[in-house]
Structures are given as structure tokens and as C-alpha cells.
């Protein structure tokens, strides 16, 4: 069951909605948000994903991070 999440990319002008898979890693999720926003923000090689006030390990999954439907995450390009 995909989990709808609000994603905010630093440098972008708008928040986007992504449907995430429980097994998706933070690195994959960050890359997907950058791709979704690439019409406005040039993607960077690496980026951190911040959820609930802390940066999460790149390999952590959506399930491990405890992300629930319609919560916010941020992606900060390095």
C-alpha cells in the first residue's frame, strides 16, 4: 500500500506529493523528490532527507523511519 507523503525540496517553490513504498530507502525517496522537482530545481548528486527534525541514514526505509500517510519530509541538497 503506497504511503502518500508531502515532500519539500530545499530551493523549490512548492511542496509535492509523493507515493512512497514502505521498503523505499531515504536515498531513493530523496532522489525521487529531486527528479519530481527537476523542472524547477537542478538535481544535485547527493542530498539528505530530514524527517521529524532529524536527518535519516540513506539506507533507512520508509517503514523504519516510521513515516505515515500525509506527513512531511524535507530533502536538502548537499
Amino acid at each position, binding site marked *: 500500500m503506497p504511503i502518500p507523503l508531502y515532500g519539500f525540496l530545499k530551493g523549490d517553490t*512548492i*511542496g509535492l506529493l509523493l507515493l512512497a513504498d514502505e521498503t523505499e530507502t531515504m536515498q531513493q525517496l530523496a532522489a525521487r523528490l529531486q527528479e519530481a522537482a527537476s523542472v524547477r530545481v537542478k538535481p544535485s548528486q547527493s542530498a539528505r532527507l530530514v524527517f521529524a527534525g532529524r536527518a535519516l541514514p540513506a539506507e533507512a526505509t520508509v517503514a523504519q523511519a516510521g513515516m505515515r500517510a500525509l506527513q512531511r519530509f524535507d530533502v536538502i541538497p548537499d
Partner: protein
Amino acid sequence: MTNLLKRDDWLDLARKLDWNYKYVSEEDVFPAVASGTPWLPHEQWASWDEPFKTSYAEYVHNQHAKDDSVYAVRDAVGRLKDFEKLPSQWSNALKLHAAALPLAEFAATVGNLRAARFGRDSAWRTMSAFGAMDEYRHTQIPLLIMHELIRLDPQFDWTHRFYHTNNWVAIAARHVFDELLLAANPIEFAVGTNFVFETGFTNLQFIGLAALADQVGDHMFEKMLTSIQTDEARHAQIGPAVLRTLVEHDRDYAQYLLDKWFWRSWLLFAVVTGFSMDYLMPLEKRTTSFKEFMQEWIIDQYLESLQQYGLKKPWYWETFIESLSIYHHMVYASAYTYRPTVWFNFVVPGVDERKWLREKYPEHWDELDAVWQQISAQWEGAPGEQEKAIGSAMVSFCDLCQLVLCGGTPSHNTAETVEFNGESYIFCSEPCRWIFQQEPQRYAAHKGLVKRILCGAAPGALPQLLTEYFQLTPDTWGKDVTARGGRHD
């Protein structure tokens, strides 16, 4: 004939005549659910008055003369050939107004009619009856003068559908106008519409935008705005007269209504007027930026009005001042990349326009310029062959204002999430979150576009969303004005 009463001898019998009820109670005639709170006996409202003191005969005479004047300008400069001479980017400001204005004005007719029945003093009710006729006139004038334009462009034709669709802008417009104009009781209507919206903000439209319309040579639109303004100036006087008594009896409620409707009005005008002034007006015709106009005509005047009643500026004032420099730019850049979701066309600000915007908005322009550079880069190589720089990811919307989540700056989006009754809500800003939390039972059941998609009430795929839910077509959805991403080479 010489025995006829003079005007001042009979006028108050016509416009301000109250009496005591013998067979029913005052509460039955003016129940709080319809008249609003605080519920006060009439003696507390008996000093209600306004400066215009118009008779019905004078009203009809004056309005007839105003309509004659509008028709004369239409006959002289309001024909299709006159509109065809206007800059194409400006015509998109007209499309924005042609969609948003007429039925919002009609909704204001309903709000005025409610006050004409349930307002607590007869002079208030008389003024509201005139206000209702004013707003009906403001429905008809734009429909009349812009009807000519449906032959010019199918996007003008689509503007007549706007409020009857589930286009995301229409959802946002209905959310604010349903509450403000159709559902509010006369007290909230007077504070939110007459005081905040009409006294506080409409100078933006009726003075600022009218002056710009004159600059660009659109004398028909200018005439429409200035003619409407003469009505607004009169019936807006309902606001201060109601606020005076409200402040005496429930200052906190007055402050709450003012703060709520100032923020909601601000978001609306930032999009409609902000886009028109800073992007859809040709650069060589611009005399002032949207922000400068807000500072000169709105902010000082509004704060002075509050001081007259011993009221405070809204608690979120710093947030508001910050958003003056950035909010409409965030929405415009975002909307450019989702232009097929609306019914008007966009321009990419060119080199000179960006220079002007940097001068006018030095605080955040570097961050915004990076976004425009990325957008422009996508038009490199094959301009004009097909539309470029269009986003395909689903965007997200505020659960209060229903507008896109464009609060804050590119480096810090101010969206906030909140749980209520086990449901998750997101807001573009702290003030929108605060408004929701003041009356969650009023707002919580409304499903925004994201929740409609998630529950299957709206299609999730963008092509179906555009055509089936927003009712747009390739002829009517928004495009780049130049079809070249602003390039002129």
C-alpha cells in the same frame, strides 16, 4: 409643491426607521444563528450610522448615470478590435479576472441580502440592500464587457465555467467565498467583507490595477474597475459602523475576525493582483511593484484603521510582511510549471524583467532567479516546438486556503502538519494553521484536492485530472505566452 418636505426632513424615515416588536420577541426576529454574535438588544445598535445617507431615488439616479458612463466607454473603446491591440500577456490578467470576479460578486449579493434582512439596525439593512444591488451590478458589468472576448480566445469562454468546475483555483476560491460571502452572518460579513476585504484590500484592484490598466491602454477594464469602486466606497462603510459596536462588546472576537479575514484576503489578492501587477503587465508599462503598492495603499491605511478602534495589528504581522516579498513569486513560478492546470497563459520573466524584479524584491530574488534559470534552460534547443518545463508530479495543497503549498521561501517552506480527530492536515503557513485550529469543526470535513484523489473522488492521473475534473482542454489550458519560454531570439 412648496409644501413638500425637504430631503433631510424625510430621509431618516426612509433609511433608518426601527420600532419595538409587540407580538414577537426581538430574538425571534433576529435570531443569533442568522444575525450573528454577540447578540445584543437593538438599543446597543441604535447609534449605527454611515456617512453616505443615500435615498433609494438617489441610488437609482446615480447608478443609472454610472451605467451610462460604462456603456459609453464600451461603445468607444470596448470592441473586439480594441482588445486585440492590447499586449497578449495583459489579456491573461483579464482572463484571471473574468473567471474570478463575476460570481464572487454575485455571492456578495447573497451576503448583503442576508444583512439586509438580519442586520441589527435599519440603517444597516438599508445600506445592505443597496450593497446587494451594487454587487449584482458588479456581477453583470464584467460579464457584459468581457463577453465580447469569447470570440477572441476560447480561454475567455472557459472563464464562464470556472466556478462550476473542480479546477484547483476554483476549489480555493469557493472555499474562501462560500465562507465569507454565502455562509457568514451579517456581523462576520461586515467585518470580513466590508471592513477587511473592501476597505482594506480593494484599493489594490480599483486604484492600483485600474491605474495599470490605463497605462497599458485597456480603458474598458480601467472604467469597469473605477465604476465598481464608486459603489464599493459606499457600501464598505457598513464595516466600520458594525466594527465600532462589536469592539465595544467583544473586542477579542472583533480582533479574531479581523486577523482571520486579513490573512485569507491577503492570499487571494496576492495571487490575483500580484500576478497581474508583477508578471502579466508588460515591463515598460509598470509604474510600481505589487509590494510597493501594498505598502503605499494597504498597510498604512489598514493599521491606521485598526488604531482608530484600539485594535492590534494581526499577531502574524511579521510573517505577513515577509510574505509580501515572496509569496506571489513562489506561487507564480510554481504555477508556470503547472500552467496546463489553469485557464490563462504565463510569461517567463525575461532578462530585463528579472532585473526589475531583483530591484523591487532584493530579499529573495537570488533564490527565485535560480528557479527561473532552471525553467529557462529547458526551453533551450528547441523553442516553439512543444511546451517545455511542465511538471508532472502531483502538487500539494493547504487544507485551509486550498492553494498550493508555497508558503515561506525556497530555502524554507513554512508548511505545517497537524493531527485532528485522527486525520492529518497540512497548512501552507502558521496563520492558515491557526485559522483552522480556531474552528476545526468548520473546516475539517472539507476534502482538498489531494484527499479527493486519495479517496478516489478525483482522478490521480494528470491528463484525466485536467480534462475530466478541471474540465480543461488543449484549447483552454494555460500555455507559455510566447511558446518560447520568454526567448525572443
